[in-house]
């Protein structure tokens, strides 16, 4: 029997990056989504968008070559590839809302079997809510993929029948990459298209609070 070893965050990002073809315009959210860019080889021309007005974003600069005027939406220093451009916030979100992005990748607290996503607020803390561009991205991109751990740290499923946390967007997610599986959101709920080696259907179902379909 093969031991079930979950994908690391890096492996999850690499798995997702594998499915991004040349020519796509892509926005990556903060956290694990940002790591996806590291797994797209530079010769596969994927154009990364940052909602603060950067199109054609490149990797972090080497130490000593930081341009303090060039940051991404996570407020981290980045670079611009040849062919890149800047725009103001209304144009940047026009790209998002207008359906010009082929893909947005976000993290999430929960995804429901109908594609609802909750990723901006939990009702459990007393800090001010902060939505940023998450609702615009979730509603606007042509495709919304989520990359997240399959369960919370204390083992609660994050793939659910109905989200309990405040929603970011309705019926928006089309695919989820977790540390255990890749799943599509279909009219019939979550459909598993890949599992980590050693994972069984039963064990994956146990970690999921919605019914899984297997191809």
């Amino acid at each position, binding site marked *: 029997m093969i031991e079930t070893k979950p994908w690391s965050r890096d492996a999850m990002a690499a798995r997702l990056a594998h499915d991004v073809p040349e020519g796509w315009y892509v926005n990556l959210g903060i956290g694990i989504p940002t790591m996806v860019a590291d797994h797209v080889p530079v010769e596969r021309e994927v154009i990364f968008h*940052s*909602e*603060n*007005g*950067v199109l054609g974003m490149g990797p972090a600069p080497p130490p000593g070559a930081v*341009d*303090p*005027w*060039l*940051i*991404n939406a996570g*407020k981290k220093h980045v670079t*611009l590839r040849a062919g890149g451009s*800047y*725009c*103001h*916030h*209304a144009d*940047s*979100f*026009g790209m*998002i*809302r207008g359906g010009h992005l082929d893909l947005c990748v976000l993290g999430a607290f929960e995804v429901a079997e109908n594609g609802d996503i909750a990723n901006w*607020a939990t009702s459990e803390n*007393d*800090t*001010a*809510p*902060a*939505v*940023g*561009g*998450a*609702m*615009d991205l979730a*509603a*606007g991109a042509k495709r919304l993929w989520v990359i997240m751990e399959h369960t919370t740290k204390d083992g609660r499923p994050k793939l659910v029948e109905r989200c309990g946390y*405040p*929603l*970011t*967007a*309705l019926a928006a997610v089309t695919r989820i990459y977790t540390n255990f599986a890749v799943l599509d959101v279909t009219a019939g709920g979550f459909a598993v298209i890949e599992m980590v080696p050693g994972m069984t259907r039963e064990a994956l179902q146990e970690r999921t609070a919605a019914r899984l379909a297997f191809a």
Partner: protein
Amino acid sequence: MIDKIVPDMNAAMAGVVSGSTILVGGFGSVGQPNALIEALIERDVRDLTIVANNSGGGVVGLAHLMQRGCVRRLICSFPRSSNSTVFEELYRAGKIELEIVPQGTMAERMRAAGAGVGAFYTPTSYGTKLAEGKETREIGGRMHVLEYALHGDVALVEAWRADRWGNLVFNKSGRNFNPVMAMAARTTIVQTQHVVELGALDPEAIVTPGIFVDRVLHVPYGDPVG
């Protein structure tokens, strides 16, 4: 001769009064007009409604303005950052009102204000807490939320280069909200790192035409920190 370049901060901030709605450019610490924000504190204008993407960090700029009790209400998309303690303390103590707006909706509300559009329908936020109480409508088979234009009494903008007509260009991600805020306010006040001769800016590359700008103050402070 038109000359929007003003000689000093007093001239730049003339007529900015308590109770105003002030649009403040910047995303993170980049493109944030800190000198103009500090001038609000020095002039002791209070009871302000501030529209800005973030709530400021540390105790500079917006955070300083809030710490001094000048802000009654903050309209923003993301009031949290690694060091946004000033805002968070005021918020927990109930000393500041907060309106959370999705970032793109916030930008478009100001663009609409600048373009004379009273309101618009957007799919963003439909079905969420942020759409509660708002009019909705099905357009092209999709549900949309009605959002109103967001006007400012004053916009505080940071530019990279400006001329005496108020034409502006920005520096990389320092552009962010600055051009839409410049459009959306009755009085737009700019701090610029460089002042250039009229005609020196490439007409094909001017980002904010001077029609949207009222006053320009030369503030060559260098690079953003943080």
